[in-house]
């Protein structure tokens, strides 16, 4: 009776797949909170969560493997009893803020740790200013702040009574 077009789909996103939740894991001590918030978002959206760990360039293979496994363990704990939440684990090297903005292209929301006041590298701020998707910053288990682009509906925005909008770019037809 109707057939939608696939126009506007970004990357691996298909119109009938909810867009991804990206958990940006960097070595800022908040990976567990970020992973937990990302999983909650993914459950709320029935979406996939992509755990992306950004490592600095120049690590030895042993150091990299060790950090890979540590990130994996953090993500597994966040997925505790959420067997149906699909996910991927990715590790990239580079400058964290730029890599996360680049890798979150086409996602629904990017979850990152909130910058501490005395931080020299402000990953959260950069992502909020440059990411194409909503950015959720996290600094504790219940301390989250959403900076929306107005394109999606977050678990946190719903909790806050902030009704989301439908995606104006989404391809519809009758």
């Amino acid at each position, binding site marked *: *009776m109707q057939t939608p077009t696939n126009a506007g789909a970004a990357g691996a996103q298909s119109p009938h*797949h909810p867009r991804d939740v990206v958990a940006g894991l960097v070595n800022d001590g908040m990976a567990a909170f970020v992973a937990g918030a990302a999983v909650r978002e993914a459950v709320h959206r029935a979406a996939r969560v992509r755990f992306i760990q950004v490592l600095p360039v120049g690590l030895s293979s042993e150091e990299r493997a060790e950090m890979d496994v540590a990130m994996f363990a953090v993500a597994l704990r966040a997925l505790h009893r959420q067997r*149906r939440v699909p996910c991927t*684990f990715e590790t990239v090297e580079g400058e964290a803020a730029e890599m996360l903005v680049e890798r979150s292209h086409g996602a629904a929301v990017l979850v990152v740790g909130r910058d501490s006041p005395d931080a020299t590298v402000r990953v959260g701020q950069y992502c909020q200013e440059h990411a194409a998707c909503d950015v959720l910053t996290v600094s504790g288990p219940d301390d989250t702040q959403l900076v929306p682009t107005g394109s999606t509906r977050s678990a946190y925005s719903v909790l806050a009574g902030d009704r989301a909008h439908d995606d104006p770019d989404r391809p519809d037809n009758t």
Partner: protein
Amino acid sequence: MESEPRESELSKDGAPPATEAFELDDLLEDLRSRAQASDRAQERLAALLDAVLAVSADLDLSDVLARIVRCACELVDARYGALGVLGADGEHLVEFVAHGLSQEEQEAIGDPPHGYGVLGLLIRQPRPRRLRDVAAHPDSHGFPANHPVMHSFLGVPIRIRDEVFGNLYLTEKQGDTAKQGDADFTADDEAILVALAAAAGIAIDNARLYERSRRLRRWLETTAEVTQLLLEGMDEASAMGFLATRTRELSEAQLAMVALYDEVGDLVIRAVESGEPSGAARRPGAVLGTVLHKGYWRELIAEHESVLLLTRLGDSTVDSLSADVRELGDADPHGPTALVPITVGDDEVGVIGVAWAADAETYVGNVVPLLAALAQEIGLTLAAARGQQDRSRLALLEDRDRIARDMHDHVIQRLFATGLSLQAAARMAESTSVRRRLDEAVDDLDAAIKDIRHTIFELHRPTPFRDLREEIVELVRVCAKTLGFAPSLTIDGSLEGLAADFEADLIAVVREGLANVARHAQASSASVRVTSGDTIQVEVADDGVGVAPSAVHSGLANLRKRAESHGGSLTLTARTPRGTALVWEALPDRE
């Protein structure tokens, strides 16, 4: 906030207009039309009851959905109908069952809708909708190419226990008007479709519960089968092969693998089941015995957490954990992959991996909890089987210890006493020949005591415990690499106490039997069964092409000689529908 309905609401009743003065003819006409309306209402009620019965008559979900759409079209005289099933996100349609369009017409239209435009209106605001012209609605985005033009529209949500399962969409009311497709759906149509949707919700719920219970029963049967195989003596590798096969079937997956920790703590792939390899894909048997080194695996098992990986075509990077599993056999490069740890309490046993086709995304979420339950049961079963083996070994060691103790405490002491007595008697003997014979008897007793002490030493010697059973298990495991698949192995009965040469013959039979399968049979599966009783029987069976008459039978002749030297025989028979069974039987020589 929900706005007032924007579509044109239609008049709700067909009552005749009031008139100030009724003529007799008008009155009769009014009565006649009311009687006709009553008849029509009764007919529709009867049709509704028939439809309710029809949609409840089957428990197969796809049949139920098709019946619902067909009945809905018949009830309200709609030319086209469809049932859209909502996905887990509650925002998109993941299944679309259409009626009124031929297969060719559906193919010409292309992808089924996912729930945008007017169809999405019912998803966002799940309540009945009637439209005179669907294309004129502000939410409409028009029809795709090759789609028939549609005007009148009636949509109703289907709920199951307060949750919206999907929506019924009907178009093109076929009214009494001569101009087809020009009629509108009425309030009666809407009411009757709402009633049908309520019954449909119950029918769908019943069908889903039935399907779930049937699936659950099959998973439980698999658990019971693996338990039985392991506790009846099948070796772990074969039982895990069976587990991988059944897991792949039940999960409707492309590949299933089982890896278990070995005695030195390596996580080793014990079974892989996938379809026939194509292209560069490896044969599943070729990866058996591979150690999974990456730290991810240990972390996954240590955390006791199942994980559902999902990679899609176009992803910016490859998930290496998912790729590690999918590359073990012939699976799509992308798609869902479940990793489920096998644990028993705090003990870490291994992991089950399952990989699905790329288009199975909507299906797998319900399978992962079943896999987790299966893995938990398999963990318990493995622990029970290993416990059984350990108890059996312990009993054997205790038996050896008891025999050694008895020989030392009783047999040697009595022989020693007898020797002393004979020595005393020899000193008293006057005849030289008697004295010599008594001395010889004492020497024989000394030799016997030495032999017994040596036997006691052997019984107590802490040799690495590697019995015949383990040798056969290892032999079959190694042969899997040559064969390209893991043969199943069952050892029924005790193989303890066999003479060394008999053990050697037994090993030779298994080796030669499997070598023949690898060389000649072109088989896809094989089984080895060793049965120990009054006789010992070894059966090596395959599903291959059989033994060619021209084949060289020197190996078989050797096996026959080995059987005959133990009072046994060798037979080679064809199996039905295909394959060969080699049966070697002999009287055991026991130590």
